[in-house]
C-alpha cells in the first residue's frame, strides 16, 4: 500500500519537476502509439467496411479469423517482426530493428485486427439500416463503403480508441523489436518493466500512473474534438 501512495506522489513529483527524460519517454510513447493507431485505422476501417458490404465464399471464415486475431499474443508478434527485420531476415536490409519504426510495425500488426473487427461490427449494423436505400440509389461499392465509414464514424472512433488502449499499454512486442534503448526506443511500458526489474517499485508505479493519465487524456481529447456524447448527437 505504501508503494502505491509513494508511487502516486512520485508521479506528481516527476511531472512537476518537468523531468526531460520523462517527457522524452512520454512523447515517444505517444508518437509510436498514435502513428500505429492512424496506420491501423487506415487499414482496418475500410477492411471492416468491405467485409460488411461484400458477400463471398469464405466470408464467415475470414470474419472468424479476424476476430481470433484480436487476441494475437504480442510476444509472438514481436518475435515474428524481430525475425523479419533482423539482419538475416527478409527486411534486414532496411535496418529497422531497434528503431521506433519497428515498434510501430509491431503495434500496427497487433491492433489492426481489433480495429477492423470493431469496424466490421459497427458498419454491419449500419449497413442493415442503409441497405435498401443505398441499393435503391444505385451506389457503387466504393460509395457505399465511404458512406458507411462517414456515418459510422463515432462507432469507428471507439474502435480506434480500443486500438489506442491496447497499443499504449503494450510491452511484449515493442520490448523485443525496440530493445528498450535509452533515448531511442524507451517508452513508458518498457521503462516500467525495467524499473520493476530493478526493484524500483515506486518509480515504476509512478510511470504507471502517468501512463493511465495519458490514456485518459488522449481519450478525453479525442471525444472532445470529435464532439461525441453531446445531446444533439444521440
Amino acid at each position, binding site marked *: 500500500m505504501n508503494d502505491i501512495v509513494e508511487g502516486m506522489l512520485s508521479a506528481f513529483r516527476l511531472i512537476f519537476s518537468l523531468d526531460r527524460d520523462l517527457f522524452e519517454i512520454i512523447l515517444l510513447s505517444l508518437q509510436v502509439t498514435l502513428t500505429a493507431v492512424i496506420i491501423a485505422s487506415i487499414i482496418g476501417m475500410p477492411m471492416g467496411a468491405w467485409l460488411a458490404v461484400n458477400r463471398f465464399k469464405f466470408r464467415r471464415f475470414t470474419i472468424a479469423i479476424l476476430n481470433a486475431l484480436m487476441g494475437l499474443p504480442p510476444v509472438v508478434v514481436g518475435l515474428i517482426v524481430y525475425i523479419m527485420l533482423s539482419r538475416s531476415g527478409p527486411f534486414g536490409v532496411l535496418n529497422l530493428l531497434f528503431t521506433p519504426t519497428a515498434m510501430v510495425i509491431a503495434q500496427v500488426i497487433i491492433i489492426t485486427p481489433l480495429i477492423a473487427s470493431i469496424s466490421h461490427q459497427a458498419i454491419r449494423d449500419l449497413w442493415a439500416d442503409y441497405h435498401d436505400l443505398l441499393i*435503391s440509389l*444505385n*451506389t457503387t461499392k466504393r460509395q457505399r463503403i465511404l458512406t458507411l465509414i462517414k456515418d459510422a464514424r463515432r462507432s469507428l472512433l471507439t474502435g480506434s480508441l480500443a486500438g489506442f488502449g491496447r497499443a499504449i499499454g503494450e510491452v511484449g512486442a515493442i520490448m523485443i523489436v525496440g530493445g528498450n534503448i535509452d533515448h531511442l526506443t524507451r517508452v513508458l511500458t518498457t521503462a516500467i518493466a525495467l524499473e520493476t526489474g530493478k526493484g524500483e517499485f515506486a518509480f515504476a508505479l509512478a510511470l504507471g500512473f502517468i501512463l493511465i493519465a495519458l490514456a485518459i487524456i488522449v481519450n478525453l481529447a479525442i471525444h472532445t474534438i470529435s464532439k461525441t456524447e453531446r445531446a444533439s448527437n444521440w
Partner: protein
Amino acid sequence: MVDTILPLNVKNATVKKRDKRIIGPINIQISTKGFTIIMGPNGSGKTTLLRLLHGFENPCGGILNWNSDVESVQQNQSFVFQTPIMLRRTAIENVTYPLSLRGIPKDTALKIAKEWISKINLDHLCNTNARFLSGGEKQKLAIARALITKPQLLFLDEPTANLDGSATKEIEKLLQEAHNAGTRIIMTTHDIGQGKRLADDLIFLYRGTIHESGKAKDFYKKPETQEARAFLNGDILE
C-alpha cells in the same frame, strides 16, 4: 437529353421466395405518363410488385422490358420506403446526398437542396439530425431526396401508412406537384380514399396476382371482380 425509360412491359413475371410464390405471373404495361396506384389487402404482394419493378427483386420467371438500357433505367428512378430510411446526417445533408453521389459540386448541390427543403417547409430543420424529425417530416424529406435527381419514375411504398391526416395531406400535395411536373408515379396503398384522390390508373392485387388493372375511375365505379368489390366495400378479404 436522356431517353425515356418508359414504357415498361412486364411479361409473366413471378417472384418466389424459398420456393413459395409471392407474386405472379404478372402481366402489365407501365405507360409513360400518369399516377398509378397499386392497391390490395395486406399480404397481397403490393410491396413485392413495387420492389420487382424497381429492381430490388429478381423475377424467377418472365421478363421486364424497359424502353432503355440498364444504366439509364437505374439512374432515372427513385424509391421511397414505407418507413423512411434516414442517413445519420442533417436534413439538408440527406437531401444533397443523391447529388453528391452523381458528382455534382457541393455548392450547386446545396443550392438545389435548399430549394427542396423550402418546398417541403422544413427550412427551420435544415441543420437538425434527420433521425430526430417526426414521421411526417422524415417522409417529406425522403420524397425530396427521391425527387432531387429529377427521376422519370418514382416508386412509393405506402408512404403515408404511418402518418396522420395533416401529414398525409402534405405528402399527397407534394406527390401531385411532382406528378404535374411530369414525374411518373407508382405507389402502393391500401387506403381506398387515397387511391380515389390520387390515381389515374389502378392495379388491384389479390393473393399475388393482378385481379384488375385499368382506369381508376372505372375501378371505383364498377369493379369487375368479386374480390375488388369486397375490398371496396371494406369487407375482410382472407
